[in-house]
């Protein structure tokens, strides 16, 4: 995070996330002000953070101004209220021209509203945990690690299935879809960057950077057949499931 050094940051919401985040940012050498609207919580946090925590409702503009939003280069809204997080970031971006905002989404169903009002990136703990579950229980075959929808690029984590056509082939001989690159292979717990001479094994975990439009093609080519075999028999249901070749 060295490139952020010297920046002034505002963190809104002194819950577990906001408090710990502020502490980490301060330890990393950043200038940070934390804003909390609940008096009792403020007094608790103030014992540790002292002048770096400010009492007030950050959805009121004068509170943001008193906290110095005009010189802030980043605003991070992590309260437990999605409307608050959304509007604080919207105002920071549109009214005060803050370069970077990060919003917390408490209810994943509200993501569409963040998209609508152009507030991004946003972070949803529910989604992060869901991704970890996908990773541990890979009924979908691949895990999205990073989606940059606007830039039309994503990074996925994919398992080479037992019967996949690419098993025992050199990376250089693969017939990968255009717009896709294998960036790392994790084998028996150790990761490395593959070369053209790397031979893929069943059970390899592959990270690929790609254009989202070739995702299905890549998945079917690398031939997901289930991590432990039995997943194949498991019900592939739900709107988000990604059965092989679909």
């Amino acid at each position, binding site marked *: 995070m060295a490139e952020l050094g010297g920046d002034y940051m505002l963190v809104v919401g002194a819950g577990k996330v906001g408090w710990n985040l502020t502490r980490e940012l301060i330890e990393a050498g950043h200038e940070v002000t934390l804003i909390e609207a609940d008096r009792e919580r403020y007094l608790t946090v103030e014992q540790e953070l002292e002048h770096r925590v400010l009492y007030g409702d950050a*959805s*009121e*503009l*004068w509170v943001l101004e008193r906290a110095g939003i005009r010189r802030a280069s980043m605003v991070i809204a992590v309260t437990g*209220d*999605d*409307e*608050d997080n*959304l*509007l604080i970031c919207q*105002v920071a971006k*549109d*009214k005060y021209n803050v370069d970077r905002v990060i919003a917390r989404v408490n209810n994943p*169903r*509200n993501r*569409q*509203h963040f998209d*609508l*009002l152009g507030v991004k990136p946003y972070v949803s703990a529910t989604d992060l945990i869901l991704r970890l579950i996908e990773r541990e229980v890979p009924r979908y075959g691949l895990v999205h690690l990073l989606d940059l929808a606007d830039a039309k690029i994503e990074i996925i984590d994919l398992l080479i299935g037992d019967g996949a056509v690419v098993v025992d082939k050199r990376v250089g001989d693969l017939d990968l879809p255009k717009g896709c690159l294998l960036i790392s292979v994790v084998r028996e717990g150790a990761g490395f960057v593959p070369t053209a001479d790397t031979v893929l094994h069943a059970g390899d975990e592959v990270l690929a950077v790609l254009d989202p439009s070739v995702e299905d093609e890549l998945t079917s080519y690398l031939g997901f057949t289930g991590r432990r075999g039995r997943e194949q028999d498991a019900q592939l249901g739900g709107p988000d499931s990604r059965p092989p070749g679909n």
Partner: protein
Amino acid sequence: MKILIVGCGRVGSSLARTMLGDGHEVSCLDEDPDSHSRLELGLESSWEDEGGQFTVGTGLEIDALLTAGIEDADVFVASTDGDNTNIVIAQIALRRFEVETVIARILDPYRAEWYEQQGVRTICPTRVAIEMLESDLRRIAGGSEHQAAQGDG
């Protein structure tokens, strides 16, 4: 005219009854099922019998907005008891559903002013109260030097 009112408290319910009485099509959305009874205050028959519509849900739930008929609404009124909720749902109505007239109740005058500039029609009860009190006090204190100096007495 079809009017959708989100937030059926004192303001929303009273507005809903008046607009229904004026002959408009009125649909109300509120997360509290009990707010339905507030709509019927002073009515001789039920809200539905009088021609009104009532949906339980919040303005952040797209399904609830659709059930309440946002797609055909000519006017959208955000009158919940939360400024932030009103500002968010007003923008959803404006940007996502492109409702022609969107009005939001915003208590904080400073924010009301900014969102007004962003294209949301706002009603700021705080501003109205301040102006009424100011004008009342000026009248009471009429003829004072200050007022004479301002020349608006």
